[in-house]
């Protein structure tokens, strides 16, 4: 576990970019680029990250970057990987596909599943801010139950899609769940993924002050609170072997430190969530958490 003081000062994400004040993406992206030491090509579809990346002719991130069409992230990245191999350049850089939750769980899932089935040699990282934020906060398959968005005005009825679990079912060599509120965890997981071949999937929960409705100063605090509530779980599945990491590993021993009620009270997207819905989400979260704890303890094998 790399300590924050040991993280490299890579400087690939440049100040003066177009992301919102307090955006979780920048925190994560600084460590993603640092872990790959800029030896990468970042494939990015329409999303908040595209805006952070900058409008022509100025780029805000000092790494090779290819913008691609919304549904196509994984397929475009597969093409880049194939092209680099064909040109004898495969060893020069890591191919990193980086898309939002809409571009991953919804419109991009077909291409992602195809790339995973082929075990194409790339890292796919989903930054999950739990809605289509770039277009103004419409619900996605990743939006949590109870959240108000511009297309779920009275709160989303469904629970979110579990994309890491979907990726696990593809039996790819590495699946991980992390959070931008834990940049050391992000750094370690991307560093580990860098050394593995085949399709590596990383899901990064990314708090969004604009879309979730909280003061930008609380981005990291609320990201940590989500982990403390067991709503976001830090884990990895490496060659089929499951383990909790970081704060989630600690919580498995000590017990969770927060409830769903604690969490939803902090963000205006959950305003109006009634006790029944909160209880239902708590039950859903409890069942998931207990399964993860059991897997970590080896009870599920």
């Amino acid at each position, binding site marked *: 576990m790399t300590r*924050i*003081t040991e*993280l490299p*000062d890579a*400087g690939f*994400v*440049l*100040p*003066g*970019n*177009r*992301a*919102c*004040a*307090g*955006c*979780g*993406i*920048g*925190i994560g992206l*600084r460590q993603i680029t640092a872990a790959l030491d800029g030896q990468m090509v970042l494939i990015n579809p329409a999303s908040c990250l595209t805006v952070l990346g*900058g*409008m*022509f*002719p*100025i*780029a*805000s*991130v*000092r790494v090779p970057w290819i913008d691609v069409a919304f549904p196509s992230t994984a397929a475009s990245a597969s093409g880049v990987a194939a092209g680099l191999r064909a040109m004898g350049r495969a060893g020069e850089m890591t191919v990193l596909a980086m898309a939002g939750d809409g571009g991953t769980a919804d419109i991009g899932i077909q291409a992602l599943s195809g790339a995973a089935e082929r075990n194409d040699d790339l890292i796919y990282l989903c930054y999950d801010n739990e809605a289509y934020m770039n277009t103004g906060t419409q619900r996605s398959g990743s939006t949590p139950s109870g959240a108000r968005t511009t297309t779920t005005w009275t709160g989303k009825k469904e629970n979110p899609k579990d994309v890491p679990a979907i990726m696990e079912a593809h039996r790819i060599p590495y699946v991980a769940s992390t959070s931008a509120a834990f*940049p*050391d965890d992000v750094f370690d997981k991307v560093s580990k993924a860098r050394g593995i071949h085949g399709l590596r999937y990383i899901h990064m929960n990314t708090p969004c*002050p604009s879309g979730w409705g909280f*003061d*930008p*100063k*609380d*981005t*990291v*605090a609320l990201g940590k609170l989500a982990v403390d509530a067991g709503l976001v779980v830090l884990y990895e599945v490496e060659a089929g072997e499951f383990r909790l990491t970081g704060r989630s590993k600690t919580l498995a021993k000590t017990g969770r430190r927060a409830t769903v009620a604690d969490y939803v009270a902090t963000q205006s997207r959950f305003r109006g969530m009634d006790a029944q819905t909160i209880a239902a989400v708590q039950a859903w979260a409890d069942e998931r958490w207990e399964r993860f704890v059991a897997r970590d303890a080896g009870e599920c094998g």
Partner: protein
Amino acid sequence: MSDERTSIAMSKPAVGEAGRTGDWRNKRPVLTAEKCSAVKLGKPTCQLCWVYCPDACVSRGIGPEFDLEHCKGCGICAEMCPTGAIAMASEAVHGVCEI
């Protein structure tokens, strides 16, 4: 266009793509050096302000420094500082924003 490459859209990296994003903020971070653990110990210690800034506007120095041209004033650094060494001060002084 003499450079054939200008027939495609391809950006070069530079600071300030969105301009002087320091203009976005209502409050700016201010360090009380005596409270900073790095300053007190004379060596790098926690560096949380550095790691949590989404915009890489906080240096890793012993006593962080803030890039006020670009700091958007989100307040994460102040919120996460374990010793309360960073406070967010209002930009408006006598109704005028100053750098």
